């Protein structure tokens, strides 16, 4: 578990390579593309979602994975085109929608972690994603 000073290291599998860092946005609910997000501002729009109204633009998005229609990848692809994609994607359920979506969003993405990322990362924590090395480093935010 991350403490205030020492980053926690979690290992996982590279899905899309690269390196990114930023503030985490964490949800234990899957996210829909069509009807789930606004691809123009990167916000969650699904009425019953715990993150409704919040934007993942530039955030390290930590979530179980994709839900909903087969247009999922196309919606996240659009967030990149519109400059509001997440900075990285960390997910736990590998599906074709999720994998393709990560690939076409072209942000570092990882899965198959050796720890429970929903326990280890909270919204606001600082996360460094090094997909090439298969590592993420989590620094607990003071407020957390």
């Amino acid at each position, binding site marked *: 578990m991350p403490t205030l000073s020492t980053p926690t290291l979690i290992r996982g599998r590279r*899905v899309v390579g690269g390196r990114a860092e930023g503030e985490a946005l964490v949800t234990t609910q899957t996210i829909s593309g069509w*009807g789930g997000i606004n691809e123009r501002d990167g916000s969650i729009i*699904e009425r019953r979602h715990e993150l409704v109204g919040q934007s993942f633009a530039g955030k390290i998005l930590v979530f179980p994975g994709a839900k909903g229609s*087969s*247009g999922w*990848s*196309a919606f996240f692809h659009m967030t990149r085109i519109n400059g509001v994609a997440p900075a990285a994607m960390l997910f736990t359920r590998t*599906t*074709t*929608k999720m994998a393709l979506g990560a690939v076409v969003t072209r942000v570092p993405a990882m899965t198959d972690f050796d720890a429970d990322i929903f326990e280890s990362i909270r919204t606001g924590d600082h996360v460094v994603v090094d997909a090439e090395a298969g590592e993420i480093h989590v620094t607990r935010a003071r407020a957390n």
Partner: protein
Amino acid sequence: MQLTDTEKAMRDGSGGEAVAAAMDLLIRYGEALGAERLVETDNVAGAFNASTPSVRKIAERGMDEVFSRLNLDSDRTVEIPRLAARTCQLITGIDDQNWALQGADPQMIEMQRASEAFVGQRGVNLMATCTPYQVGNVPTFGEHCAWMESSAVVYCNGALGGRTNVEGKESTGAAALTGRIPYWGYHLTRNRYGNRHIRVDVPVRSMLDWGLLGYFTGERVEENIPVLEGALAGVDLVTLKHFGAAAASSGGVEMYHIPGHTPEARSAEDAFGPNRAEEQHVYDAAARKQMYETLQSATDRKVDFIMLGCPHNSIEQVGRIAALLDGKRLHPDVALWVHTPRAIRTVAERSGYVARIEAAGGKVMSDTCPAISRRLPPGVRVIATDSAKQAHYLPAIAKVQGWFGSLDACIEAGLTGIWTGDF
């Protein structure tokens, strides 16, 4: 991920730039999945035409760019050659015949037609429906496919024993150019066995029954593979089409087994294979009623719009609607749209069904649907539908209230303007 010599050659340019870009995407995608290798496919169903406002700017720069950017995720515009795999167009954004009724912009229909000419020239069969299996694209048992559209995927896998994952715009573009898709997920026999059991204690026979069971199934099993047994009757293309679409909407069901009625389920034992049912669920009268109530998102009984045909109706469903409306008139405040593939509309016209529906004041629509096109008749506040999937999605998308029920209840509401429902 292992590549055959042919695949390496494609990656390295033997088939031209578009094929190389396609193979590059497939490699990145396959590695993202952790797939061992690719599999050959000659059956691709995707979304290749340009039919939405968001695509317009790209389309103005040409159709090669539309395909390159949106169907290949390529920043560089490549020239799109004739497609290698058999490919068809799923649902599109605008009804080619009734676009004015939909309130679509004439420029948009011109764009859709121009893009269709482009992709048709390259071998995309312009079926323009979410139900390609109703228009002759019927995968054979074990056939490896690359399909978009969750309701079509679950039909291919469950009802037909074909093999596809839920593909996306970009992966189907790549598959169409190369005849390849990652050998992952439902392409492997071992991933197709059931792992959840649903015991059906209340009789299921009608379209309404099967939609409610589907919605329950998806809610309970999410993306797992249910095996359903019990008081099940009336299994055919129409009921399985509705069942699967409902289960894919409430959950993410992509495969299911109904012993004796789906090809990979001679029995429950056969359906489970080496697996055990990790969870058991019981569908009883209380569950059925609860699903019915969950699918209602309306309070106002005065109805403006009846949406029938999600997934797109079969000819038999259109015929049934024609018989129910024969000699009657819809309430003047109600619009009723029946959705069916354009090819099937031809049969419906010849059989006299379209004339009967139109004489009652209804419209037969094709190519799209309100949830996808986001177009309804003007001023609609309260809809009613016989589709669990449409009831699940349309109210949020179109910001309307929604009633759900049987076809008979929908027709009744169409005639009276008031929803009374089935219970």
